């Protein structure tokens, strides 16, 4: 909702539609009729935040509770921020237009390390003290969840509590506890102590961290009965867990402007670089009936004419063909398209292809991740060149002529030959096109090989690995470009400096809180946007703070070092990750969860694929 104060600023900004709310299906309540006002903050602009499924789920779910009003808050773009600061308008929530300074709970979702400065900037713009110790009342409770909360330490000074794992249940439990303590007029300390006893809640102020002289962590000691480790929360019955039947439908175009159905959680694959693949274990599927109903409800309530079947690896759903057939019983009549954002190289069948093509054709993207078989074995990406060739031939036969291949450079054990292998693989795809007798007539082929820089992440077998230095990464990027021999293959890469900063914060500790504060004071924000990111500025900040970023990004840890996130437990045993790391160096792969259990530890959650009957290869 817009009030006069907001309206006056809108004439001077681009895309005012970002700042007004009022969209279809947004939730309006009366502030005096609720007990808890919750600001769901996404530390990036509207178009990015509104595309995020987690926000849609938790926003809708919190609003099903009569005594809670959850509203959305996004980072204003720089033009709007300038207007807001100039005119003394604090950060407000979209539904009410009210300043979030007066809210009970201010919750952030942590999706990306480079959005951390935006969090501080948003708190500052709201007029909320940045540090948890400077906020004394129970209200203005600043909380966070999301994948980056798996190592919350670089943000520990700013947050009162973190949600570890999946939020659907634990968010509601914390909100209910908050309401009770607010009614009883209890203190923030009392509340945090009680909240820390809820599974999936991490209260950083209740843990004392000591360091060795070399700055590695010496010990993590809980206080006041706080648990050690802090175990993640997880929704074991994904069919029964909350999923909204309505999404807020933005007026303005956002990044993913469509119905999103979550078909499964977790991943069976165990690619050794992939954090999500470990954080969300075990693999849990939704049933065809439930997905079909949720898709239909959402299309009915939003008017969207496209459904995206979303997950870490949608084609691993054991009943994908059945699901698409079921959806087709109504989508074709209603002119609704189906898209699959994540396809694997090894199970893209002609049958599947004809099913998604029947409605609308989108580009095809596959992620072999590494250019040579040896390196693909190292990272446990169990995809062969033969499978890739079979897949692209299927695609060419089906009329596709544009293929995008995703790779990473800087992977452990990688050599320049592996990098050249990326270009060679691209070339082989081009050759396959011309050798294919059923290729589309009169059309050329375009193969984009996109190389991002590898960032070692917590809770993966590579969490001990050094990241390649930026110098090495740039050398590899140049080598990739030099290895491309034709114009049919287009190489593409990301700047190494943002990956470096991502690596620093991904595996950082509490000493980085000071760096973030200093970065915020120096005006760092929107670091995920290339035109705002200033690497030299960041290096100055590290220097001023007396912290060597290479300590976090480029240092090899020993297996017995205490890691800053060792007190957080995602159910994956450290010993399993160590074994996987050793297997990587021996070029040995690990079978996927459907083929064979590798005893990662996720069976402690008593469900999902760990307890399914295995039928051998799928």
């Amino acid at each position, binding site marked *: 909702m817009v009030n006069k104060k907001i309206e006056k600023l809108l004439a001077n900004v681009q895309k005012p539609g970002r700042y007004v709310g*009022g969209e279809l299906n947004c939730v309006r309540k009366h502030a005096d009729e609720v007990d808890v006002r919750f600001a769901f903050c996404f530390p990036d602009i509207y178009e990015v935040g509104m595309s995020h499924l987690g926000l849609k789920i938790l926003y809708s779910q919190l609003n099903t509770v009569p005594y809670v009003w959850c509203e959305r808050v996004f980072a204003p773009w720089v033009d709007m921020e300038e207007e807001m600061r100039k005119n003394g308008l604090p950060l407000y929530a979209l539904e009410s237009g009210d300043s979030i300074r007066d809210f009970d709970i201010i919750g952030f979702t942590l999706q990306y390390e480079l959005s951390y400065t935006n969090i501080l900037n948003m708190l500052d713009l709201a007029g909320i003290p940045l540090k948890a110790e400077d906020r004394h009342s129970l209200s203005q409770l600043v909380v966070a969840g999301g994948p980056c909360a798996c190592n919350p330490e670089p943000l520990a000074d700013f947050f009162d509590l973190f949600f570890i794992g999946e939020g659907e249940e634990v968010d509601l439990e914390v909100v209910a506890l908050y309401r009770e303590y607010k009614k009883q007029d209890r203190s923030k300390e009392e509340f945090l102590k009680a909240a820390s006893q809820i599974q999936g809640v991490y209260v950083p102020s209740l843990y004392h961290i000591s360091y060795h002289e070399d700055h590695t962590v010496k010990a993590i000691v809980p206080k006041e009965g706080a648990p050690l480790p802090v175990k993640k929360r997880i929704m074991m019955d994904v069919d029964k867990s909350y999923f909204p039947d309505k999404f807020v*439908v933005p007026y303005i175009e956002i990044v993913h402007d469509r119905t999103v159905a979550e078909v499964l959680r977790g991943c069976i694959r165990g690619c050794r670089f992939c954090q999500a693949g470990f954080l969300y274990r075990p693999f849990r599927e939704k049933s065809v009936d439930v997905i079909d109903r949720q898709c239909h409800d959402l299309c009915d309530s939003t008017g969207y004419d496209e459904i995206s079947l979303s997950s870490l690896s949608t084609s691993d759903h054991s009943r994908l063909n059945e699901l698409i057939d079921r959806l087709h019983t109504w989508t074709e009549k209603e002119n609704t398209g189906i898209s699959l954002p994540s396809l694997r190289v090894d199970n893209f069948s002609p049958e599947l292809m004809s099913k998604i093509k029947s409605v609308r054709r989108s580009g095809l993207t596959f992620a072999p991740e590494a250019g040579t078989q040896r390196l693909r074995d190292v990272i446990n990406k169990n995809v062969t060149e033969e499978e890739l060739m079979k897949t692209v031939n299927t695609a060419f036969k089906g009329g596709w002529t544009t293929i995008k291949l995703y790779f990473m450079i800087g992977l452990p054990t990688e050599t320049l030959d592996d990098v050249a292998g990326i270009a060679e693989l691209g070339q082989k795809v081009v050759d396959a096109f011309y050798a294919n007798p059923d290729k589309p007539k009169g059309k050329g082929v375009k193969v984009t090989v996109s190389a991002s820089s590898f960032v070692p992440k917590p809770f993966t077998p590579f969490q001990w690995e050094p990241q390649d230095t930026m110098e090495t990464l740039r050398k590899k990027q140049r080598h990739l470009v030099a290895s491309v021999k034709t114009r049919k293959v287009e190489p593409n890469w990301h700047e190494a400096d943002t990956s470096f900063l991502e690596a620093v914060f991904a595996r950082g500790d509490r000493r980085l809180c000071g760096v973030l504060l200093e970065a915020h004071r120096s005006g760092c924000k929107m670091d995920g946007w290339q035109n705002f990111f200033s690497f030299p500025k960041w290096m100055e900040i590290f220097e001023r703070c007396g912290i060597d970023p290479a300590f976090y990004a480029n240092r090899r840890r020993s297996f017995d070092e205490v890691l800053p996130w060792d007190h957080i437990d995602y159910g994956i045993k450290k010993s399993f990750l160590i074994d996987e790391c050793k297997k990587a160096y021996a070029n040995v792969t690990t079978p996927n969860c459907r083929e064979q259990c590798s005893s990662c530890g996720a069976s402690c959650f008593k469900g999902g694929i760990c307890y399914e009957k295995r039928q051998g290869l799928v």
Partner: protein
Amino acid sequence: MKNVRVWFKKIGTARYISHLDLNRCMLRAIHKAKLPLWYTQGYNPHAFITFALPLSLGIGGERESMDIRLDDDGITREELIGKLNAALPDDIPVFDVTEPVMKPGQIAYASYLMKLETQGHPPEETAAAIRELFSRETVVVPKHTKNGMIDLDLRPYLDRTEVVARDDGVEISAMLPAGSTMNVNPSLLCDAMKKYLLLDLFSDIRRINLYDADFKIFE
């Protein structure tokens, strides 16, 4: 098959969305309402939907219209209004559906209501100053056109303008050329006040109605 003209308002938050966004919003609403929309029969079928005269970003509309072509004649006016309202955000309410009488190309004028905040100044004084400005021999403001900036004299278009002082500010009703041949954006009047009177007033502008060359209301 029949063409219908859907009448709606663009108010509140909806004032801040562009014409392109409004277009997508309407298409989604029609899809959501499951209206039997007629699709073009070409290689790339798309819905047949046109707007009489798009509004500029930030300006509200009290009587906006959109023409759609339906495959089915059986649907009633009330059903159409009900279904569309159930599918649209609150700030884009549909209030009527009629058969188109005029062609959008016949539109020649639009009437606007502008509410200016005078911020502490007595509204009567400000209103008098604006009246004086609007009666000068020339009132020239820069205007964006396809061929770059030009100097436009607003004076010939200000004869049907009324400036009234209210308790909380100044209200201007204006009838300005609108349509494909000549279009004068009401915000140019604000530009003139800024340039000549150094008055930078917050203005809430609404388009009230559209007219043909004979000042007959667009139907």
